């Protein structure tokens, strides 16, 4: 039977995770964001429990990395979690931000993630993520845009040596 993996992520100021398991679910407790991953409707292949856990861990890690990279304008952070098109586009955003003196401060307020496709051979998985974000766009120290937004993302992850990496991350109007 597939499990619904509920993950609450708390990131301390030092970025330390606290991992707590409860029956039928796994919880990463923290203070910044929470992710719930539902793999019940993934097709054509069923998501194995170990894959589910690894996926949740790596996807949460990718978000933390992206938030830090966009805030600090450090494209070098992305390599651990992003490859291909996603890495290129995020890196370009960061380079352009750096040139213009801009940065984005994103506060992650939670995700609801559903796996919608898991390839037959097990090397690619597609997620639909409804993210709740506080987004502040800054020009140096000046706030030029702020919003509390619910943003829908389509994420395509592929299996790397020992982790899942995001190859495509696109915000869409809806699912």
């Amino acid at each position: 039977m597939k499990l619904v993996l509920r993950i609450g992520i708390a990131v301390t100021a030092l970025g330390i995770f606290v991992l707590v398991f409860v029956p039928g679910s796994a919880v990463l407790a923290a203070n910044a964001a929470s992710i719930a991953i539902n793999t019940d409707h993934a097709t054509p292949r069923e998501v194995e429990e170990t894959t589910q856990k690894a996926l949740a861990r790596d996807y949460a890690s990718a978000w933390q990395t992206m938030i830090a990279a966009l805030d600090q304008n450090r494209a070098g952070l992305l390599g651990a979690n992003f490859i291909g098109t996603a890495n290129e586009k995020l890196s370009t955003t960061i380079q352009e931000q750096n040139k213009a003196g801009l940065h984005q401060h994103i506060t992650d307020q939670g995700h609801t993630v559903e796996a919608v496709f898991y390839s037959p051979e097990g090397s690619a998985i597609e997620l639909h993520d409804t993210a709740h974000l506080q987004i502040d766009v800054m020009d140096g120290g000046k706030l030029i845009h702020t919003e509390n937004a619910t943003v829908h993302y389509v994420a395509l992850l592929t299996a790397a040596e020992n982790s899942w990496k995001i190859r495509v991350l696109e915000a869409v109007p809806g699912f």
Partner: protein
Amino acid sequence: MNKAPMEVAVKCGGMMTIALLLMCCFAIATHAAELNVPASVAAGSGLTIPSSGSGSATLYLIGPGTAIKRTVQLGQEIQLSAEELQNAGRYVIALDGNSATFFVTAGSAQSIAFLARPSRVPADTPNVVSGTAFLFDKYQNLVLAPQPVKFELTVNGQTESRSDTTKNGVAFAKLDSSRKEGPAQFVASSGAASVRRVVQVVASDPCSLRMTAARDKNGILARTDPIHDCAGNPVPDGTIVTFTSTEAKGKSTVDARIKQGVAQAELPASNNATISVASGVVVGNEIQWRGGQ
């Protein structure tokens, strides 16, 4: 009871509420008027935004692969180029204290990311080859609108095909391997986009494994007939074939590799032994050896 003060209070409250609503509407209208952007635009199509007021202001555009800050003249149209809006996703635009968001959506499919597995498959096996196709536009945006995809697996002129429609940007198919071995051309296509992979179809497990045995100078020489799978494909050289000789004093086993289509092994001399042959899960004939008979 004197109701007048309460009625006045209610009326004042109502008027204040209406005034607040009007102020909100005015504020929204002002905001929309100054940054009138569509909800979504197609990737690479550019955008023209009207602006009001006078003088110069700073325009900000933040989106996937984009972070722009530039000075624009208020009261004139603001041009966002096709290059600035080529990546699908959510954009924030800010101008003169106002901001808005809009989406850029993928264009038509121009390329395919094709996962074909496995690279080698046994012949004549159902649903053994899988293909997964992700469609992208010319800017490498995932195309989420449903698109037809055709999967074709061709070996020696024989083609098996499946059609699927993308859902969430992806389509997949499982196909049977051909009866004949050889390099199979596995093609995924959608519109003008096409990608080819090669899947090597190899002989499946041996079929009707048969051997003969004869005395030789050191013992018994067991030798198979040419080994084929059930579709008639020769089983590849190097495949292990196990010969076993069982007699009263014990058992002797020799693992031999197929060489030039056959496998052979030298077994210890014996006057009374049962010789058997197997390869993988396939068991061949047995020979009752009686002193060279």
